[in-house]
């Protein structure tokens, strides 16, 4: 540190209104810190975050020429920014500040050991001072930003995020993989808790999105590559041909003969390979399902048969931020899981919802042409699986998470059934009922009062679903131990079994690798921090919307989408981005371009070895692109020349802090 002789450190030990001082002897801490080298002032304060407290800091900076500030107070998450701003107001670089947590990590956890807590405060403050000596002024990374965002996924979350962003004056490119927008929500009918029709709600949102001049929609399109960094991403979007035109669409639709299972109805029906999923879909123009269309010639009006051809087009879009709204897939039970795939009377809840929509005209519930008198719902299928009990999935993992929405969705469906088919007997086999949302508990109460019979099974002992014996009154028999009746073994004959399947993350491996975003152990995408940085990923400028990051209902997906949009608008709204300067920095004098840092780095374009000419000689040296650097520091550990560090978090700063903690405090004897 070249300016060591000019260091003037101010140290403040906050009472936090007694929260700290009731346990830590702040006066002794302040006195001990006052005798540390380079410390020009050491004060206590009842509440440093108050206006008066901050004014004192500013005054010391101005009047005493303080050039480093160390504050021991509450957790940095609460007031680090507050105090950095005080430095800015006093004309000091805000990164010449070191925060020490004396409340959550000292006084609140050592309330029975006042001497120990005071000793610890001294060591922590001394460590803070040691780091402060090695702080350098830093500047936020400022980058020009493209005032356009990419939204990947045209379900309800992607649509909402796109609209929110566009309504704040930014442009949006929305990319949807399927030929139609609307996502999973379009497959629902009445949705809880308002009982509005899902597609009616969607239609209103889609109309606003489509009519917004700032939003460009690509359907049947995929993001194939992403380069660049926050503010300046370039995404390559490949769009497949629609395959039909306004002029020939209806004729082709009518003439197309090839059929495949209709995924919109979860395989309950079949559709053509030129199709619309449902009336009123957007875009209204039918599309060719290129995955299944195998080049069959189609004859139009007796003319020459024509063969449709997919001619993908590629477009590069420059965006400042990316919203990942790739959604979820409903869990597909394994063959034989609760009889699924083996007994035709076993269906999933999404299938039942589509079945009810398709057979609305009927007055009686039927399945496979037979009347349904008794129906059983089984909760937690593909959710809350237990290691060692449930069979791992293909990837070797189990879904140990709760999918959250299935309880209310199931109870909502039982209500629909009771209303439409009053004579129906309904059994609800559950582990726990988690109707956590506002108004959701009403569905449980109404089901209880409405005659739904609840049976509680244990996750380690699943209900057994088998075909009934010949001559039985019902085709399926369920055997289950009911913990509500002291594990009585029940046999429930039913006509239909409905599996309340959970949510699983979509297969988006390519996209995950492309964007370098992280996934949790549940394989959903991971935000940096659920409370401190919700919907943000560790990749600057990439945010999450909706069920891509975990099971959510529509309401929560919309909230997450709006949060993601707000982050994007806050980031790009000014046309430039400002990032924390805690990224890797190379010491040009020490670096000789070994490339070890490049080899270890996981972040595309964050660091590269470049060749320079200096004094007529070619030299190699690592160069960091700050916007692409996450600040993880993997490069720091591998550099043989110790030529790279994370700014504000350097190894030498850590070593100084360790030395301070390991050392003795001069007047410790007075404390202990």
């Amino acid at each position: 540190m070249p300016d060591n002789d000019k260091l003037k450190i101010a140290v403040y030990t906050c009472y936090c209104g007694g929260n700290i001082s009731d346990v830590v002897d702040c006066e002794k801490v302040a006195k001990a810190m006052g005798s540390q080298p380079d410390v020009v002032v050491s004060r206590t304060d009842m509440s440093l975050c108050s206006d008066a407290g901050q004014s004192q800091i500013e005054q010391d900076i101005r009047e005493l020429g303080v050039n480093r500030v160390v504050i021991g107070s509450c957790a940095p998450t609460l007031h680090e920014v507050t105090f950095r701003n005080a430095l800015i107001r006093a004309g000091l670089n805000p990164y010449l500040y070191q925060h020490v947590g004396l409340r959550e990590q000292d006084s609140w956890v050592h309330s029975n050991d006042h001497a120990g807590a005071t000793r610890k405060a001294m060591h922590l403050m001394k460590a803070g001072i040691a780091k402060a000596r090695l702080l350098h002024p830093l500047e936020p990374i400022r980058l020009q930003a493209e005032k356009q965002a990419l939204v990947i996924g045209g379900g309800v979350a992607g649509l909402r995020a796109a609209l929110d962003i566009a309504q704040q004056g930014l442009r949006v490119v929305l990319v949807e993989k399927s030929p139609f927008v609307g996502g999973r929500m379009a497959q629902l009918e009445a949705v809880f808790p308002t009982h509005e029709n899902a597609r009616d709600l969607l239609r209103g949102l889609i109309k606003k999105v489509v009519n917004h001049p700032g939003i460009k929609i690509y359907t049947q399109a995929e993001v194939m590559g992403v380069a660049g960094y926050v503010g300046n991403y370039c995404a390559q979007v490949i769009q497949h041909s629609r395959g039909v035109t306004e002029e020939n669409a209806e004729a082709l639709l009518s003439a197309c003969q090839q059929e495949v299972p209709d995924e919109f109805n979860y395989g309950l029906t079949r559709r053509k390979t030129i199709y619309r999923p449902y009336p009123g879909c957007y875009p209204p123009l039918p599309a060719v399902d290129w995955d299944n269309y195998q080049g069959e010639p189609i004859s139009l009006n007796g003319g020459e048969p024509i063969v449709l051809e997919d001619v993908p087009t590629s477009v590069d879009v420059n965006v400042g931020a990316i919203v990942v709204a790739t959604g979820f897939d409903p869990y597909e039970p394994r063959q034989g899981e609760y009889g699924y795939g083996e007994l035709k009377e076993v269906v999933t809840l999404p299938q039942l919802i589509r079945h009810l929509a398709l057979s609305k005209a009927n007055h009686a519930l039927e399945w496979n042409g037979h009347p349904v008198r008794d129906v059983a719902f089984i909760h937690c299928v593909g959710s809350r699986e237990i290691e060692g009990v449930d069979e791992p999935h293909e990837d070797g993992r189990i879904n140990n998470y709760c999918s959250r929405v299935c309880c209310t969705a199931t109870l909502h469906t039982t209500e629909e059934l009771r209303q439409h088919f009053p004579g129906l007997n309904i059994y609800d086999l559950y582990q726990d009922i988690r109707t956590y949302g506002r108004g959701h508990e009403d569905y449980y109460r109404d089901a209880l009062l409405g005659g739904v019979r609840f049976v509680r099974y244990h996750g380690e002992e699943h209900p057994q679903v088998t075909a009934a014996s010949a001559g039985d009154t019902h085709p399926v028999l369920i055997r289950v131990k009911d913990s509500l009746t002291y594990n009585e073994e029940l046999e429930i004959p039913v006509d239909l079994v409905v599996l309340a399947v959970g949510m699983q993350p979509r297969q988006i491996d390519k996209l995950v690798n492309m964007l370098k975003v992280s996934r949790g152990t549940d394989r959903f995408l991971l935000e940096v921090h659920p409370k401190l940085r919700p919907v943000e990923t560790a990749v600057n400028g990439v945010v999450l919307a909706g069920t891509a990051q975990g099971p959510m209902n529509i309401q929560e997906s919309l909230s997450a989408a709006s949060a993601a949009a707000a982050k994007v608008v806050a980031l790009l709204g000014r046309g430039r981005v400002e990032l924390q300067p805690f990224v890797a920095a190379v010491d040009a004098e020490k670096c000789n371009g070994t490339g070890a840092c490049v080899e270890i780095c996981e972040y595309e374009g964050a660091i590269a070895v470049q060749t320079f000419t200096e004094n007529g000689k070619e030299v190699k040296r690592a160069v960091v692109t700050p916007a692409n650097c996450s600040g993880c520091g993997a490069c720091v550990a591998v550099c043989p020349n110790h030529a790279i560090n994370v700014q504000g978090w350097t190894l030498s700063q850590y070593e100084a802090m360790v030395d301070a903690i390991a050392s003795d405090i001069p007047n410790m004897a007075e404390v202990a």
Partner: protein
Amino acid sequence: MPDIAQSPQPKILVLATLAGGYAGADSTGQSHLDYPANTYVLPVMCPVMFPPEFFVRAFERGIDGIIIMYSGTDSPYKVEADGTAKLINRTYQLMKERGIDIRRLRLAAICTVCVKPFLKEVNQMAELLKGIGFVKNELASRNASAQGAPA
């Protein structure tokens, strides 16, 4: 028997990730749950930045036990889970070479609300140090052995 019962107490350093262990330590504080005061938590962005020599140096300076509290596979940094495990293995190797008991370094996945796991890790390390004593004694013993003197 080491002089661990006497004051001062052995020192435990916790290197805790901002996205995991450091927030977990704050959560523990918000719950007002006590743990030994000789525990010092330093925030880190991602533990992969520390070379094995950093840990050995810390032990040699008088830190008796180190717990890395990272976010494991839930880390926002792609490199954290695998990178930290590899780092620990390399550090254990170096610790063995330097005659430092490898139990003095532990790796634990601690989330933002992992109060009980946080306490468990700290208390386990404190208990361990009661048994194995100050690192300076271990190092002195090593040096004495290296010079052929009785330990």
